C-alpha cells in the first residue's frame, strides 16, 4: 500500500543534515541561505564518501571492475537526473560544473553557431549575472543585440510588450524563479509566444529545480540550466538539458578527452551526446552525490517540498509584516503560491550588511548584498537587500528566530 505523504516533518529532516545540528557560541544554526547553497543530508555525504572508499576510478576508459562501476555510477546519476526532470533521454542531460557553466555553454556553443551581428537575444530585468554576462560577452564578441523584459513593481515580469520584444528575436533567456524576488515566471506561456515568434527559450532553473516538481517537457523551454549544490547535492556539478536536435547541431564547448571519437593530426571527430559536451574527467563523485540528492528529494516528494515551502513562506510573510509593519519592505509577489521561499527585504534604513551582522551574532545565516543581480537592484532602487531563503529543513521556529533577531538589529540601529 502506498500512502501519499502530506507535509514534511522539518524537525526530523533537520536531524538528517549534520551541519544543522552544529552550534556556535551555544546557539543552534538557523540556516536561511539555501538560495545561495543548500545544506547536505547524511545520505549525500555518505554516498560521496562511499564512492571514494569503494569505487573511485576514472570513467569510460578503464577495463577493470571498479572503472566499470565508476562509469555505471556516473551514468546512473545521469539517468536519475533525466527521470527527475522528465527528460525524454539521458543523451539530453549534459553535466557541467554549475549553472553558470551550463549557461556559458549555450552562449558559446549555440550562440556562436546560430547568432550573427545584429541578431537579438531577449533577457529579463530579474536575471542572475550568470544569465546576463555570457550574453554581454557574446555581444562584445559578435555584436548581438540585447533586449530586456521589464518587471512590474510587484516584481513580476511585465509581459505587456512581449510581442514587440520578441519581434525578430532569436532567443529568450529567462529564469524560472528569481533568486532575489522568488517570482515564479510563466515559462511555458513565454515559450509558446517565443516559439510563435521564431525564438528559442533558455530557462535558468537554478532556483526552480530544487524547490518544485520539474518536467522539462511541459515547461516548454528549449534549454534548461541548473546547479546541483542548491538541491542538497555537492558543489562542482551542474546540468544543462536541451532538446536532442539542438545539442546535435551545436559544436563542442570545451575540447579535450572524453568529448572526441577520433583525433588525428588533421583533426578530430566529436563523441556522441551527451559526452560531446563533457571534455575531460567529469565530476564523478559529485554526480554520485547528485544522484543521492535526487533519491532523497524524490523520497520526500517534490510536491511535498513545494507545499511545505509555500506554507512556510506564507508564515514568514505574515510574521514579518505583522511584527514590523512599514518598517520592513519585502520585495516580490505577495501571494505565496506565486513565489518561492526567497524573501529579500529592506528593514528601516538599516543597511543589509549591518542587519546580517547582527543576525550572525544569533547564528542566523542570511545573505546581504546584490545577490548577483545588479540590474535588478537598480530597478528596485536599492543598493542591496537582506535575503532569507527557505528550504525543506526550515520550519516556523527558524522564522521566529529571524524575526526576534531582526528586532534586535532594529534596536541597535535606532538613532
Amino acid at each position, binding site marked *: 500500500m502506498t500512502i501519499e505523504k502530506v507535509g514534511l516533518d522539518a524537525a526530523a529532516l533537520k536531524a538528517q543534515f549534520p551541519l544543522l545540528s552544529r552550534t*556556535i*557560541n551555544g546557539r543552534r544554526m538557523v540556516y536561511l541561505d539555501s538560495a545561495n547553497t543548500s545544506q547536505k543530508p547524511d545520505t549525500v555525504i555518505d554516498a560521496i564518501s562511499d564512492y571514494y572508499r569503494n569505487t573511485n576510478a576514472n570513467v569510460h576508459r578503464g577495463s577493470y571492475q571498479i572503472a566499470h562501476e565508476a562509469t555505471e555510477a556516473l551514468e546512473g546519476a545521469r539517468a536519475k537526473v533525466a527521470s527527475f526532470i522528465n527528460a525524454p533521454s539521458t543523451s539530453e542531460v549534459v553535466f557541467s560544473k554549475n549553472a553558470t557553466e551550463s549557461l556559458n555553454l549555450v552562449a558559446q556553443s549555440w550562440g556562436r553557431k546560430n547568432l550573427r551581428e545584429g541578431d537579438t537575444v531577449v533577457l529579463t530585468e530579474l536575471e542572475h549575472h550568470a544569465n546576463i554576462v555570457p550574453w554581454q560577452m557574446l555581444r562584445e564578441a559578435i555584436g548581438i543585440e540585447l533586449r530586456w523584459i521589464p518587471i512590474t513593481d510587484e516584481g513580476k515580469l511585465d509581459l505587456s510588450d512581449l510581442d514587440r520584444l520578441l519581434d525578430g528575436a532569436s532567443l529568450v533567456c529567462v529564469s524560472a524563479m528569481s533568486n532575489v524576488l522568488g517570482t515564479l515566471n510563466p515559462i511555458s506561456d513565454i515559450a509558446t509566444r517565443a516559439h510563435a515568434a521564431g525564438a528559442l527559450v533558455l530557462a535558468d532553473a537554478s532556483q526552480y529545480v530544487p524547490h518544485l516538481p520539474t518536467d522539462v517537457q511541459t515547461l516548454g523551454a528549449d534549454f534548461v540550466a541548473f546547479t546541483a549544490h542548491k538541491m542538497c547535492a555537492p558543489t562542482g556539478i551542474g546540468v544543462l538539458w536541451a532538446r536532442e536536435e539542438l545539442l546535435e547541431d551545436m559544436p563542442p564547448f570545451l575540447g579535450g578527452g572524453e568529448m572526441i571519437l577520433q583525433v588525428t593530426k588533421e583533426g578530430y571527430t566529436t563523441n556522441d551526446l551527451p559526452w560531446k559536451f563533457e571534455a575531460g574527467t567529469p565530476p564523478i563523485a559529485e554526480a554520485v552525490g547528485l544522484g543521492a540528492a535526487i533519491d532523497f528529494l524524490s523520497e520526500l516528494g517534490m510536491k511535498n517540498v513545494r507545499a511545505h515551502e509555500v506554507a512556510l513562506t506564507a508564515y514568514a510573510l505574515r510574521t514579518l509584516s505583522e511584527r514590523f509593519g512599514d518598517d520592513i519592505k519585502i520585495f516580490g509577489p505577495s501571494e505565496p503560491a506565486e513565489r518561492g521561499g526567497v524573501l529579500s527585504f529592506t528593514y528601516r534604513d538599516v*543597511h*543589509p*550588511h*549591518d542587519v546580517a*551582522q*547582527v543576525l550572525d*551574532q544569533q547564528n542566523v545565516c542570511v545573505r*546581504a*548584498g*546584490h545577490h548577483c543581480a*545588479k540590474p535588478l*537592484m537598480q530597478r528596485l532602487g536599492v*543598493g*542591496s537587500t537582506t535575503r532569507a531563503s527557505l528550504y525543506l529543513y526550515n520550519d516556523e521556529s527558524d522564522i521566529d528566530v529571524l524575526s526576534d533577531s531582526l528586532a534586535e538589529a532594529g534596536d*541597535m*540601529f535606532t*538613532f
Partner: protein
Amino acid sequence: MPGLEDLYREIILDHYRNPRNRGELETPPARRAEGFNPLCGDEVVIYLETDGDLITDLKIGGQGCSISQSSASMMSAAVKGMTVDEAQNITRVFKAMMSIHESGLDGDGGDEDLQIDDEVSLGDLEALRGVVRFPVRIKCATLSWNTLLDAIDGH
C-alpha cells in the same frame, strides 16, 4: 567570539548617523574617484580638491553600511588639510591596522602587538580597529581609503 560592541563602537555609530563632508565638488577643479565593494554593492564616490600639495577640500558620496560610511566620514575628517604625502601615509597606517591580523584572526587579544608607524596618530580612526575581528567587514572599512588613493593618483 567578538561581540557586536567591538564592532559598533559609539564613535562609529556617530559618524554613521552624522556623516562629515557629505556632498559633491565641482569637477574640475576637483578630482572624482569611485570605489565599489563587489561583495555587497556598496559604492563610494570621493571628490578631492588640492592646492599644490595640500588637500583643501574633500567630499563623499555614495551609499553603504555603517562601517563603510563611518570609515569614509572619519577618513574625510582626518585627511582634509593634510598634504598629499600625509594622506597617503595615514592611509598606509590605516590599511596596516586593517590587515595586521589577517593571518591570525583567531588569536584573541592580539591588539597590543600592533606595530605601526608611531609618527602617525589615527585618532578617532582607532575605533575601527575592532573591524579586523570581523573579516568580512574589512573591505567595508578600507573601501573609501582605496578610493582616496585612486583620487590622489588621478584615476
